[in-house]
């Protein structure tokens, strides 16, 4: 049996969870300890996603876990879903990204914008991991402003023809199916953006892994090229309507990221505490020096705040009262917080902290991607700025 992670819970946040929520968390926690932690360092260094974990994740029910049971999903509430993301990212942001994409960016849009036929066809396949999905929104020239996208879908007698390029697409090269967002009318009309379910073996569809990543190395990130890709009429997500639709997907994924970041931070803090007690310098454990204590105190304080933030956000989501701006605040705060914790942990570990054998540097490097994707930190600042002042800084 691998060493079990004991959690970080200074304010008895566990006491605010139900028995099922704790049971879900503990199951995923044990699975991560047994299956992710022992292999993730190697995979990270090799730049490979641990594909062999996918069937196990599916078996546990981790994909789209907050979607209904009738589609083969676990039907959990959003706090339990968040706890899953927390534990997965405690293992690695790449593993959590895989689950986020599959669940929040592929299954969720099919559930939310799909026809009954599409839901029945795709959701059980995706929940069971028999099919892998990816989400193609970002383009080489349109990241923070996806409304400017130039990928287009033209309606024909038989269906649709898609043309364009997507970039930075998680799972792009492994996916069996891509949710592709494209404009169906004029390029200056973001209201014409619709979502399409595109099989990746369609003629004219190509995916190529992006090379040279120094972050999120245990995750595939790819470029997608769509050249006259023909799909039938049924490929259109009928209820998708305008830029708002992909943004709703992002809100769903960001919610999980807010939790996930806390998982990374917990892993780094835990590692830092252990190291601080064990590492003797100047005849003392470094944990006995005020400077290192201050580091640890700062980490624990920020983690505790972020945990409570997530929990209340989850309760609001379960009550149907969560706003996208509240998600922005949590994503922005928690990812930035986790990046700081990872960096401080890495520094506390001295030279050891640069090794893949420890976790801090891997988390730190990963979190730089997480800081950027799903709305950069800056973009969330602008979203919140607009929420506060009523004045948009975008336009």
């Amino acid at each position, binding site marked *: 049996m691998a060493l079990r992670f*004991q959690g970080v819970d200074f304010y008895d946040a566990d006491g605010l969870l139900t028995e*099922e929520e704790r*049971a879900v968390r503990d*199951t995923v926690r*044990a699975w991560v300890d047994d299956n992710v932690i022992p292999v993730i360092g190697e995979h990270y260094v090799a730049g490979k996603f641990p594909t062999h974990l996918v069937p196990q994740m599916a078996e*546990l029910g981790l994909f789209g876990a907050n979607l209904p049971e009738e589609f083969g999903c*676990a039907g959990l509430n959003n706090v339990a879903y968040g706890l899953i993301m927390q534990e997965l990212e405690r293992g690695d942001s790449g593993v959590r990204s895989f689950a986020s994409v599959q669940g929040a960016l592929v299954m969720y849009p099919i559930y939310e914008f799909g026809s009954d036929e599409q839901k029945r066809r795709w959701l059980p396949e995706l929940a069971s991991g028999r099919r892998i999905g990816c989400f193609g929104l970002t383009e080489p020239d349109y990241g923070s402003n996806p409304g400017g996208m130039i990928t287009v879908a033209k309606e024909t007698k038989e269906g649709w023809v898609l043309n364009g390029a997507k970039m930075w697409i998680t799972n792009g090269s492994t996916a069996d199916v891509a949710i592709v967002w494209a404009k169906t009318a004029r390029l200056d009309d973001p209201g014409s953006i619709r979502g399409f379910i595109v099989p990746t073996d369609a003629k004219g569809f190509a995916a190529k892994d992006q090379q040279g990543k120094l972050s999120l190395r245990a995750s595939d990130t790819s470029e997608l090229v769509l050249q006259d890709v023909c799909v039938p009429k049924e490929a259109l997500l009928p209820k998708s309507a305008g830029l708002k639709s992909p943004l709703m997907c992002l809100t769903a994924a960001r919610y999980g990221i807010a939790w996930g970041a806390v998982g990374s931070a917990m892993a780094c803090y835990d590692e830092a505490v252990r190291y601080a007690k064990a590492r003797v310098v100047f005849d003392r454990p470094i944990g006995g020096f005020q400077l290192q204590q201050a580091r640890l105190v700062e980490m624990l304080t920020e983690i505790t705040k972020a945990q409570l933030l997530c929990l209340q956000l989850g309760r609001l989501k379960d009550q149907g009262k969560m706003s996208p701006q509240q998600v922005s605040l949590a994503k922005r705060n928690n990812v930035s917080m986790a990046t700081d914790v990872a960096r401080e942990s890495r520094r506390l570990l001295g030279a050891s902290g640069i090794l893949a054998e420890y976790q801090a540097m891997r988390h730190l490097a990963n979190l730089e991607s997480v800081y950027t994707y799903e709305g950069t930190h800056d973009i969330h600042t602008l979203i919140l700025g607009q929420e506060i002042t009523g004045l948009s800084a975008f336009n």
Partner: protein
Amino acid sequence: MKIAVCIKRVADSETRVKIAADGKALDEAGVKFVLNPYDEFAVEEALRRKEQAGSGEVVVVALGPAAAQETIRAALAMGVDRGVLLQVDRIPADGLVVAQALAAELKDGGYDLILCGKMAIDDYNHQVGPMVAELLGLPCVTSIAHLELQGNTGVAEREVEGGIEVCEFPLPAVLTTDKGLNEPRYPALKGIMAAKKKPLDIKPTALAVGGLEVLAMTPPPDRKDGRIVGEGVAAIPELLRLLREEAKVL
């Protein structure tokens, strides 16, 4: 195939435990409780037997406080069909008292097989399984690491010092399970949700008085600091001498 598994709620071996003010029990505040890991092997084995047989029922029986419902639900989440809680205020120290209560519950259940973990990780007693067998007049094989069932006969292997002991026994029987028997499954998330809806019978239970009393519980003495006896190859003779003469481990 109808199988009963006796399970116990124990403090997680990785939580740091404190001794209560009366000096005779654990202080349960802030302690995480789990399904006894040896019982997990028993639950897993029961589920596999039922799955292989294609039909049957797996029932878990726990003796413990109301909070042990959570332990039972952990087993239900793994796939067990129903649970019985023999509810008491606290689990008695006397294994025989526990075995008597369990045996009374199991006696008329019509079970083909009764499984227990070989021991609980809190008291290390190894008692309850064999005692239940004795009270029920059933054959018992302890600490099994492998099991074959064929009709009304079973063959179990036990890892004993220097070898493997093979025991044949008729069903019904009581078996206690050791590490290595199987790899317990993780409860799937759907299983956790389904566990809430499975039957859990709570039976307030009166216990026999028993003949054992805990007088005092003390933590192990602090470990002394390590000592560095020298560096490199030159230190080996001194290290060997100390291991032999002082630590007496060689």
